[in-house]
C-alpha cells in the first residue's frame, strides 16, 4: 500500500453530479456510536459501543453555476439523500472506492470574501451503509454497448452473502438511445460468466443507483451495458460501475 496525493481523487460523484472540476477538498469521517458506561467507583471514563456506526461527509470548492455543476448540485440537494461514490486511489479498474448508500445533504453554504473567488461547501449525514468496494468500470464515456469482461476485476474470493453494486451516470444523450441497461456479471474462474444483478434502466442523467443482492457473488466481476434504440445520433454515456462485497 502506498501514499496517494490529491491528483488521485479519481471521481467524487453524488447522485450522478460530478463536481470534481471545481472541488478543492472533502472530508469523510466514520464513527462508532458510543454510550457513556461510567459507573460508581470507576476513575476512568468508560465508553461502550452500541453496535451502531455512522459516517459523515463534507465537500468544498469553487462556487460554479454551470450546468450540472456545484451550485446546481448543492442548491437543490438540501434534505435529499443521494447515492455517492468517490475514490482517493485513482479512477482505475480494480482500485478501491467508497460507496455511500445515502448521503443526506444537511446544508449548503456559500462563502464570499473580498478579493477572492466565491466558494461553496456542503455537508452530509450518511443514511445507510458506508462501503468500500472495487471499481469495476472506471468513470468514462462509452458508446451504446460494451462490457468489461475482458478486464474483469478480481475480488480475491467470492462473497457468499452477495454485495452491492453502484452506478453513477453523469451524462446520457438520449438522442441515440432511449435507455441504457447496465448489468453486473460474475464468474468463479474468469472464463464462464453469467449475470449477477442489473441496475434500473437509465434514461436520464445525472443519476445514481445502489443495488444489493444476497445472491452469492463470485470472485471475478465485470460490467456490461446495452442501449435501447433511440432517435439516432451519437451516443454520450458517461458512467461508473463499482462493486462492494457484503460484510461477512
Amino acid at each position: 500500500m502506498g501514499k496517494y496525493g490529491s491528483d488521485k481523487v479519481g471521481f467524487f460523484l453524488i447522485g450522478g453530479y460530478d463536481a470534481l472540476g471545481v472541488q478543492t477538498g472533502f472530508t469523510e469521517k466514520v464513527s462508532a456510536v458510543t454510550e457513556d458506561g461510567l459507573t460508581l467507583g470507576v476513575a476512568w471514563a468508560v465508553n461502550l459501543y452500541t453496535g451502531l456506526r455512522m459516517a459523515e461527509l463534507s465537500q468544498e470548492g469553487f462556487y460554479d453555476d454551470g450546468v450540472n455543476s456545484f451550485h446546481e448540485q448543492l442548491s437543490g440537494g438540501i434534505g435529499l439523500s443521494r447515492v455517492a461514490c468517490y475514490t482517493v486511489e485513482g479512477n482505475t479498474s480494480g482500485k478501491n472506492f467508497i460507496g455511500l448508500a445515502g448521503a443526506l445533504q444537511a446544508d449548503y453554504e456559500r462563502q464570499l470574501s473580498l478579493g477572492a473567488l466565491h466558494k461553496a461547501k456542503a455537508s452530509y449525514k450518511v443514511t445507510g451503509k458506508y462501503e468500500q468496494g472495487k471499481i469495476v468500470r472506471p468513470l468514462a464515456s462509452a458508446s451504446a454497448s460494451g462490457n468489461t469482461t475482458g478486464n474483469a476485476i478480481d475480488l480475491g474470493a467470492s462473497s457468499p452473502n452477495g454485495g452491492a453494486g453502484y452506478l453513477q451516470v453523469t451524462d446520457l444523450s438520449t438522442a441515440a438511445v432511449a435507455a441504457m441497461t447496465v448489468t453486473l456479471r460474475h464468474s468463479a474462474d474468469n472464463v464462464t460468466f453469467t449475470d449477477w444483478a442489473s441496475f434500473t434502466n437509465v434514461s436520464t442523467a445525472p443519476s445514481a443507483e445502489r443495488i444489493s443482492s444476497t445472491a452469492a457473488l463470485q470472485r471475478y466481476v465485470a460490467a456490461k451495458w446495452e442501449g435501447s434504440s433511440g432517435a439516432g445520433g451519437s451516443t454520450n454515456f458517461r458512467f461508473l460501475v463499482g462493486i462492494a462485497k457484503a460484510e461477512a
Partner: protein
Amino acid sequence: MSSKYRALRPLEYPTSPAVLRKLKAGEHVPFDQRGHKRVAVGEVVDDVPAVSVGWLVEKGWIEPVAEPAPPEGSNDGEVR
C-alpha cells in the same frame, strides 16, 4: 460421464481452445478476442469449458444431460 449440459441460467464463455489455454494460464485476453458464445436457459451444449464445469454444476448453473440409452437388440437385426 456426460459431456452435455443444460444451462439453468444464461451463460457466456469462450469456445476457442487457444483462448481457453491462455485464460487457464492466467493470461489477459481482451474481450473482443475471446469469441464468447451465449447460451440461453434450457439450451443443451457440449462445449462448456472443462475448467468451468465443476463449479457450474456445483452452483446449479448447469446440469448434466444423460446420454440416451441405445435401443435393445439393435446389433444386426438377427431374429432371436
